[in-house]
């Protein structure tokens, strides 16, 4: 079944995702602040809309992958935003990583006008977006999720309905916390091995066979051992995510002592100018800084 689908946010994640939707035979329209970023998709058959409102008026479902909570709020509720264009029954699926509170707020505004919402952040990074193997965690109404499942099938390999609006973002915050804490633990292990003068690659290889084996040790441990700090995911994005989750923890009165320390290591990494490097460069924060 062909869906008239709109897409906003054609960055490293969004561009391959939009391409998959087009390849799956859906009718794709896009809006972008910089129209030139849409060029490859337009050549492949997508159409361009002048504003988010126009995009929403032409689509059954609009998917967004942007950077920050404020971006999503502007896109949805700002002047010329999606809410002005959607017909009742339209659906906005936001796949960005933003604050659960923003997701709930936007969902409530849409609900007043009979417009559906899903927060559907993803895990799997650029590779997952390219290979259509993303893990999708969805927050919102079950019937809305059922309507967009055919689109998700073109983007990822797992879709889990976590709960109501905002719940997808809660799961994503948990994902980011576990993953970056694990990267920090991995960096500390690699630093300890390095300080002893022991070969990092062999330590990693041995540990992968035992109870410390993990995806993070596999991928990030390998990058650390090879000192390959070219992003993957830029560490400044994890830094941004940590500000969101630590703020949520504060509001809820939940202590996150390990995450709080990881956040400080990320702060130091930003100060070292490592924001555009891979988060594996948390290893560098632990290394002697010289004179």
């Amino acid at each position, binding site marked *: 079944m062909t869906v008239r689908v709109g897409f906003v946010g054609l960055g490293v994640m969004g561009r391959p995702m939009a391409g998959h939707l087009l390849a799956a035979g859906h009718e794709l329209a896009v809006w972008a602040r910089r129209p030139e970023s849409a060029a490859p998709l337009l050549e492949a058959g997508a159409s361009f809309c002048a504003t988010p409102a126009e995009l929403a008026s032409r689509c059954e479902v609009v998917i967004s992958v942007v950077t920050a909570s404020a971006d999503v709020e502007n896109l949805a509720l700002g002047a010329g935003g999606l809410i002005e264009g959607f017909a009742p029954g339209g659906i906005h699926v936001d796949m960005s990583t933003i604050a659960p509170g923003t997701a709930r707020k936007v969902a409530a505004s849409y609900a007043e006008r009979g417009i559906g919402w899903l927060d559907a952040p993803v895990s799997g990074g650029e590779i997952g977006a390219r290979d259509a193997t993303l893990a999708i965690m969805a927050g919102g109404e079950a019937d809305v999720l059922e309507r967009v499942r055919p689109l998700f099938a073109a983007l990822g390999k797992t879709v889990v309905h976590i709960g109501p609006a905002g719940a997808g973002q809660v799961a994503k915050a948990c994902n980011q916390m576990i993953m970056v804490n694990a990267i920090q633990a991995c960096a500390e292990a690699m630093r300890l091995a390095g300080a002893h003068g022991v070969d990092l690659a062999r330590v990693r290889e041995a540990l992968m066979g035992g109870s410390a084996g993990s995806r993070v040790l596999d991928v990030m441990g390998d990058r650390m051992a090879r000192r390959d700090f070219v992003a993957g995911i830029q560490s400044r994005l994890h830094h941004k995510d940590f500000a969101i989750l630590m703020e949520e923890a*504060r509001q*809820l009165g939940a*202590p*996150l002592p390990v995450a*709080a320390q990881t*956040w400080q290591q990320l*702060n130091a990494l*930003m*100060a070292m100018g490592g924001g555009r490097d891979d988060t594996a460069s948390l290893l560098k924060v632990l290394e002697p800084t010289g004179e």
Partner: protein
Amino acid sequence: MKVGFIGLGIMGRPMALNLLKGGYDVTVWARRAESMAPLLEAGAKGAANSAAVAAACDVVFSMVADAADVEQVALGVGGVAEGAKAGLIYVDMSTIAPAAAQSIAARLAERGVTMLDAPVSGGEVGAINAGLTIMVGGDEAAFETAKPLFACMGKAATLIGGPGAGQVAKACNQILTGVGVMAVAEAFNFARKSGVDAGRVREALLGGFAYSRILENHGQRMLDRNFKPGFKAWMHQKDMNIVMQEAHRLGLMLPSSAATAQLFNALVGSGMGEEDSIAALKLLENLSGE
């Protein structure tokens, strides 16, 4: 010199009263009429809003909860900027983020108002006894003009630097007091769990390099198990949040502050937010087994 005061809560009320005691002509405004009553009885004039206070005064003080409130008082509808005479000095004594103070000061300057950020340390007792420590950021001439007024409210007012510098000093103060309270609570819990009398430990340590005002005052209240505020845990949590947000913005590593902020989260999440910060001792005891 005519003086205005906006925000008459636990801190603002005694501070405004001390300005009256100092012989100044004081005009006040607060959101709730009942907050204004004690000041009016003591001889202050009441105004209809912040703009009206500004119109009647040469120097206007505010003492409110957070940056959003300061923004409203200074630049909102019916705010200070609307009523300000040329050359008005606006002194905000609330604790807010340095970046917020700088932003508000810059926008007020465009409208001819000179702002000082002048947060305080010393709590309710310091406000009542005119014993506050006042940390000031902003223009030096404005600071000199306000100095006699600061003298009515506190025992020391220090110009730290330009706009926002007072809030930076206050954030440093909150790092030291927040981490300090946790350190004393950890030491006392350590002594207790080791079967040693924490009171004697405190007494011995007061004579050495571990001496601090917090060990002396907060330590005594911990021994007395007097958890009445003082300074409420949720307010300390709020102030530590300003510190951690600035650290994030600046790319600044604050591991001890980060740990302390999490203990405040646990304190508030455990329902002890309305107690004094020293209730951290109870939290640590609960987590260490009785």
